[in-house]
């Protein structure tokens, strides 16, 4: 049975209690330098407040502590910017995407930009199940270009790249899908972004012996698998 056809349990509860079907939208948004140091949980709250300011008719979960039904696709590591992040929101009534865009853009905090909104089919999988990889561009300092090129080649050729993060050992290599240094001194990375297997750009930078603290990785794309 195709996974997409199974109604989500939360949808059932919601429509049963309110007599409404729910409407889901996928928003592509950017996170600018103003929000570089806003973490995932805080971004979630910033979205919630943006939607509340815009008076968007959000669907809420039932129960003791109702939560708005919003779901941010893939956490962006602290310090990064993005132009291609994704959030799904669920509403209790239909709103024209043009109107949604306008109202959200007016209510968004500095640094949060809305680039596209599209309705999504009811019952389609959660973003976490769809996202497979993310692409980053990282402008890097101009010294040692040749050395960095050599390190990139070596790493792509390696079978394993053992690293330690927060006291845990793991292999970075399978998380790097592709990596290239452009002549413009931009490092382009495609990293795995599946649940339980997410590559971090700062880890790649460390592996390349670059100090990640002053660098600003910019996410340019989230890659989704076909939903069926």
């Amino acid at each position, binding site marked *: 049975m195709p996974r997409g056809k199974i109604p989500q349990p939360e949808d059932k509860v919601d429509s049963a209690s309110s007599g409404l079907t729910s409407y889901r939208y996928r928003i592509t948004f950017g996170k600018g*330098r*103003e*929000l*570089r*140091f*806003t*973490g995932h*949980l*805080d971004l979630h*709250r*910033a979205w*919630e*407040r*943006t*939607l*509340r*300011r815009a008076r968007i008719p959000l669907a*809420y979960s039932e129960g*003791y502590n*109702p939560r708005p039904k919003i779901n941010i696709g893939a956490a962006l590591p*602290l*310090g990064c910017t993005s132009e291609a992040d994704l959030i799904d929101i669920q509403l209790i009534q239909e709103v024209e995407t043009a109107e949604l865009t306008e109202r959200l853009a007016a*209510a968004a*905090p*500095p*640094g949060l930009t809305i680039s596209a909104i599209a309705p999504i089919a009811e019952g389609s999988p959660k973003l976490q199940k769809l996202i497979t990889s993310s692409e980053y561009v990282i402008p890097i300092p101009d010294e040692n270009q040749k050395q960095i090129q050599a390190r990139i080649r070596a790493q792509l050729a390696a079978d394993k790249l053992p690293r330690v993060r927060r006291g845990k050992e793991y292999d970075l290599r399978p998380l790097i899908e592709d990596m290239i240094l452009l002549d413009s001194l931009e490092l382009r990375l495609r990293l795995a972004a599946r649940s339980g297997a997410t590559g971090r750009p700062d880890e790649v930078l460390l592996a390349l012996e670059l100090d*990640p*603290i*002053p660098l*600003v990785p910019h996410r340019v794309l989230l890659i989704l698998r076909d939903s069926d």
Partner: protein
Amino acid sequence: MENIATPTMGPSDIERWLDRNLLSVQKPGRYTGGELNQQVKDWAKVPFRVALAFPEIYELGMSNLGLTILYDILNRQTEVLAERVYSPWTDMELAMRAARVPLYSLETKHPVSEFDLLAISLPYESLFTNALNLLDLSGIPLLVSDRVEGDPVVIAGGHSTYNPEPMADFIDAFVIGEGEDVILEMVEVIRSWRAEGVGRGQLHRRLAKIWGVYVPSLYRPHYAENGTLDHIEALAPEASLPVIKRIVSKLPEPVTNFIVPMIDITHNRIPIEIMRGCTRGCRFCQAGMITRPVRERPVEEVVGAIEAALDATGFEEVGLLSLSSSDYDEILALVRAVSDRFRDRRLNIGLPSLRIESFSVELMDLLKASSRRGGFTLAPEAATERMRKIINKPVSTAQLLETSEAIFQHGWHTIKLYFMIGHPSETIEDVQAIADLCKQVLKIGRRVMGHRARVNAGVSTFVPKPHTPFQWVPCDTLDQIEAKQRLLKRELRGPGLKFNWNDPLETMFEAWLSRGDRRMGQVIYHAWRRGAKFDGWGEHFNYQAWMEAFDYVGLDPSFYTHRERPVDETLPWDHIDAALHKRFLTEDYLWSLEGRTRVDCRERCFACGILPKFAELRRQNPGEVWECPEVRSPSRKIKSIPLLPA
């Protein structure tokens, strides 16, 4: 401690440094600014710049309503801009000092030293060393006497400055009382002084003329041989004695376009002040004494403000703030209006400081749909009726138990009970009674709802505060406090019971700072030099540094903490007039010793001193704007102060 020399970094250097370094500190979101609703103005076009500082971390500073109000008022002026400054946490401070980055404002990253005016909020004493550290990080000379014309004018206000003396060496001018009107008058005076280019002494004398402004450098304390204060001498004709507190005659329109933080902060909500002041007259409560008269905001104004703030911020919660919500005249109408109006917008409504009576439970019940189901808080403050009469919070034990029963019956599992130990004439039996009462309440809870019932007892230690009827009484000694806490720790354990207390050393610290005279400034300075800062943070509190500072300066902390002061002693804050007659405070103190109580002063005026002092203001604002009786004709005996600065 290394003093940062005249900063050479400008906003763009600071911005660049932050961009490259913030990932290496904890919670970088504290240091970026750029939140929704922050006010950014062009420095090239705005001639007067104010830095509003809360000398604590961002999460606490952003939760302070006082500075939020001043930020709004100042930024409404076309000729003025106001930006925020908070204390960096220790890791950020280290990084900044190492790179010689001066403290900067969040909005435009200008060094604090480039502002014309630095206004520091000091609501409580544990911020004093942080205020010194903030000046040092800004490269501003700590001592008023070391500052030169180009340095910002440093002012401070907030409840702790009702005794300004401990911080007198570091602050050019204190605001005594409410800041809404006086801040603009001070800005005007400082602007015209800057334009004239005359010395700081001139500025001090001009500021001293403003009603509610205390300029410590224009006063000299003289001490008697026994170390007590003999008198305060005014050194200039502009220096009035006493300095009368400033009030606003009517609460100004509430702020609604709050800055929306991007990280979690202590009070992450819309704060709306529904009432200022309190008519209860609890004798331990400094806020209740110094914030008189009681002024209420109309229900429609509160509702309108919440609506506007919700549109502007999207916050999930509103706090209806006052010292005693139950006493707000139209509390039922307010609660109904707010819960009806915002039901669809999923707004949590916080209603703190409710009286111990079943009506409070009904009020909370109305908010049930829109309130977090945490514990229900009651603050009996003392556990025996005798003691509650002494502190003038005369609630009967029966009433407390009935209210507790109603709370459990309405479905709350947890009751938080707030008490204090160390009240005047407290015996060990009064302390034992705290434990007994908590257990009694728990027993009621168990009867109503079984083993889910919980009682959390928060027991702080009383510090007698200036301008209260208890200002003469000594603070408990360490031995007394420890004995009382030992008893409570022993008694208040077991399933369903939780006990929280304060570190007795921190209580001593609060006591000597709040009751100190001008010599305390030396102690604060030397404690800071020895590393004292973030004193309110438990793990950072450095008692040793304070003891060394007392020793170095040659003062004895117990002179300030444990000495019972005779009622005829000149107190270090006597030249600050909170508009309370000293005979009112003295009488109330003597009444407390006899166990005599006073009713709520909405029922009967006890002539505390507010009305005679502000008769003219009251006459101009008749009716329910104030809860004090009406003033009809001017009394000849009463000399009221002018409405505008001389």
